[in-house]
């Protein structure tokens, strides 16, 4: 199959080609992740009246490299009471599945490491492995915060995997294939977000929870468990955790771009060449990435029970609804518009149902205002100086 370099380079040995592709890919991904952190810091800084990194190179572009050197040269600490095997294995148990996902990802029509016939199944299965690493890290660190974080991570990852997989099952019913490549080809004219908006919404929410980003960063919540499972990790091990977190973010962003936004196929077709296709993929991917960053800067964290009730009481019933209605449309051979109709009803339910199923906040709660009247006589008003002052905008 194709190597990750230009399509012209071709090695006959599939095994060798795969290994080379993986190595090349890991290196590319590492640099990509480094610059994802730069992008995130810049974007979030702009949302917060800040500038972000500016001192290292133009626009702070060398900041990720400086960070990498800092992390690499840090002292490698391991708590004396930590379980050696679990502590060390956890890093790899999270890191390796995160990168293995990309084996089956078709970046363009002819850029992929391996063509797996049921690649969607493979991607979901491999990305579901990471919770083992969180449990290992939580247990192996011999720290109560880490343990708490690990338990939270396991519960959250399992809970949110269900609605995400069910939402993708609904898409699989429409496209009748488990191959991401075929799914992209299916979206030749209309991307699946049009036919399956509800599945898209569920996928978007669940993927935020799967990559443990705010508002679902409960396992690592800084103000509660102070970093959760990462609390005892430092230096290169810690940065591998961060790396895999960002790689996961890329993976879900790519999956969303391929399955719902038409990947490199829509709207220009297969024949525009790999360069434009790659660009198209990146643009669609960055929509998801930007969404993850946007909500990071603006929303507070959910509480653990609210997180669970949202998954089990709202997302899972609605994804089941999507599957049932898709089956209805397919069995009775209704036109494609029926997909949109039922799914749109589901989106309305997604917005509405939260009001009844999950406890909602009470907006505009009134305060009682107790007036205080001036009882004493004020000093004679000040002449000139105070009154003549004109300040721009002071009247607002």
């Amino acid at each position: 199959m194709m190597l990750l370099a230009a399509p012209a380079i071709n090695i006959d040995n599939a095994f060798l080609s795969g290994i080379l592709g993986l190595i090349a890919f890991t290196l590319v991904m590492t640099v990509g992740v480094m610059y994802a952190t730069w992008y995130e810091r810049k974007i979030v800084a702009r949302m917060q009246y800040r500038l972000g990194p500016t001192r290292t190179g133009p626009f702070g572009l060398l900041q990720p490299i400086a960070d990498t050197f800092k992390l690499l040269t840090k002292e490698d600490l391991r708590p004396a009471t930590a379980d050696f095997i679990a502590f060390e294995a956890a890093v790899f148990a999270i890191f390796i599945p995160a990168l293995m996902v990309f084996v089956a990802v078709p970046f363009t029509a002819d850029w992929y490491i391996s063509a797996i016939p049921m690649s969607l199944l493979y991607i979901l299965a491999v990305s579901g492995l990471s919770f083992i690493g969180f449990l290992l890290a939580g247990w192996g660190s011999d720290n109560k915060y880490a343990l708490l974080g690990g338990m939270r991570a396991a519960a959250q990852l399992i809970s949110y995997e269900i609605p995400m997989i069910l939402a993708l099952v609904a898409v699989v019913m429409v496209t009748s294939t488990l191959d991401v490549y075929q799914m992209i080809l299916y979206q030749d004219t209309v991307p699946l977000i049009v036919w399956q908006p509800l599945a898209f919404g569920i996928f978007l929410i669940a993927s935020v929870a799967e990559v443990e980003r705010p508002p679902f960063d409960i396992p690592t919540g800084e103000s509660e468990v102070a970093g959760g499972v990462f609390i005892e990790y430092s230096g290169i091990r810690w940065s591998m955790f961060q790396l895999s977190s960002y790689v996961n973010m890329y993976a879900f962003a790519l999956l969303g771009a391929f399955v719902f936004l038409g990947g490199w196929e829509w709207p220009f077709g297969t024949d525009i060449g790999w360069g434009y296709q790659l660009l198209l993929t990146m643009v669609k991917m960055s929509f998801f990435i930007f969404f993850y960053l946007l909500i990071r800067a603006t929303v507070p964290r959910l509480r653990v029970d609210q997180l669970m009730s949202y998954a089990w009481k709202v997302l899972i019933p609605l994804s089941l609804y999507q599957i049932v209605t898709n089956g209805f449309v397919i069995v009775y051979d209704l036109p494609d518009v029926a997909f949109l109709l039922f799914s749109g009803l589901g989106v309305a339910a997604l917005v509405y149902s939260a009001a009844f199923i999950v406890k909602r906040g009470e907006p505009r709660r009134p305060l009682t205002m107790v007036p205080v009247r001036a009882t004493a006589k004020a000093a004679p008003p000040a002449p000139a100086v105070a009154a003549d002052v004109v300040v721009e905008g002071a009247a607002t």
Partner: protein
Amino acid sequence: MVTEQHDRSLEVVDIPINMGPQHPSTHGVFRMVLVLDGEVCKDVIPHIGYMHRGGEKLMEAMDFRQGIGYCDRTEYLAQFSAELGYVMAVERLMELEIPDRAEYIRVILTELNRLSSHFMFMGAFGIDAGVFATSFTYAFPQREYIQELFEEVTGDRLMYAYFRVGGLAWEVTDNFVQRVHEVLVHTRQGLRDLDELLTKNEIFMVRCQGIGAFTADQAIAYGLSGPMLRASGVPWDLRKDDPYSVYDRFTFEIPVGNHGDVYDRYLVRLEEMRQSVNIIEQALEQLPAEGPIVAEKLPRRLRTPPGEVYSKVEAPRGEWGVYLVSKGGDKPYRLKMRSPSFCNLSALREMCIGQFMADAVMILGSMDIVLCDVDR
């Protein structure tokens, strides 16, 4: 042989988890041991005293002028309120008459200090709730304008020591009134930003509403004061109920909550900031353009007649009081501070039991404690 019988029943153990003194959300060196059953707090044991340095005793060893500096160092987010409480106690013993202009400047600075303190609360509380520092960066630039004004007037960013027994240390800058107006523009901007970011945020509401709720009776029984007490529905504000300085010359409103939970404490503080802006504007209008800023016939060496006095002010966190006993001479015989942080913190255990661990963080955040003021 008798094989050993294993007890197969499931043993459930509560985890004592040590939060602090170096935890991101304990606001200083506060330590609490949470006894957790899963995620739910079954017990909370607070440990204080990490910052204790005997401030009260130190102030007994200093003369009345030197003690002002220790008020700053004790309540380091509401320094002017603390200074005001202390100098008022001495002034009351010495029966000094404070000139109007000094009183107005005191009120303006104290209310600005309330604004800066509440901005600090808004920023830190957002982080407790899990907003990634956005509340902080919204609140802090606006707080910085207030801080710059204080620096211009007093020459210091943190330890002002500007209120003196009998008046003020020196005259304010020439463009003081204009500068305050400028600062208020930024303050209003900050209030709008924070209001839009947090108040109607769905997640913020569900996180805050209904947790840590105290009824009015409970709040009074625990001796809470300030926004904590008013959120529980008790309209008690020393500026209204026991007016000191020139507070009886202003018309304003006191926000009182109806539920007593964390969300109401947030709302009360937000509304209090608007009212502070209101008070400052009235004070700027009434401020005499000229006049003395120090009481007449003030001796070079401050000596009080024997006696005892309790003076209290409505600080941003509640009732900040000074109990002063003098046996004559230039030093207090006994000095006791009544700090709102300490009294409010006493309610922590009752509020947290039965709540989630994440809520315990929010409840602690909603108390807005200053650890130095707790430990003194």
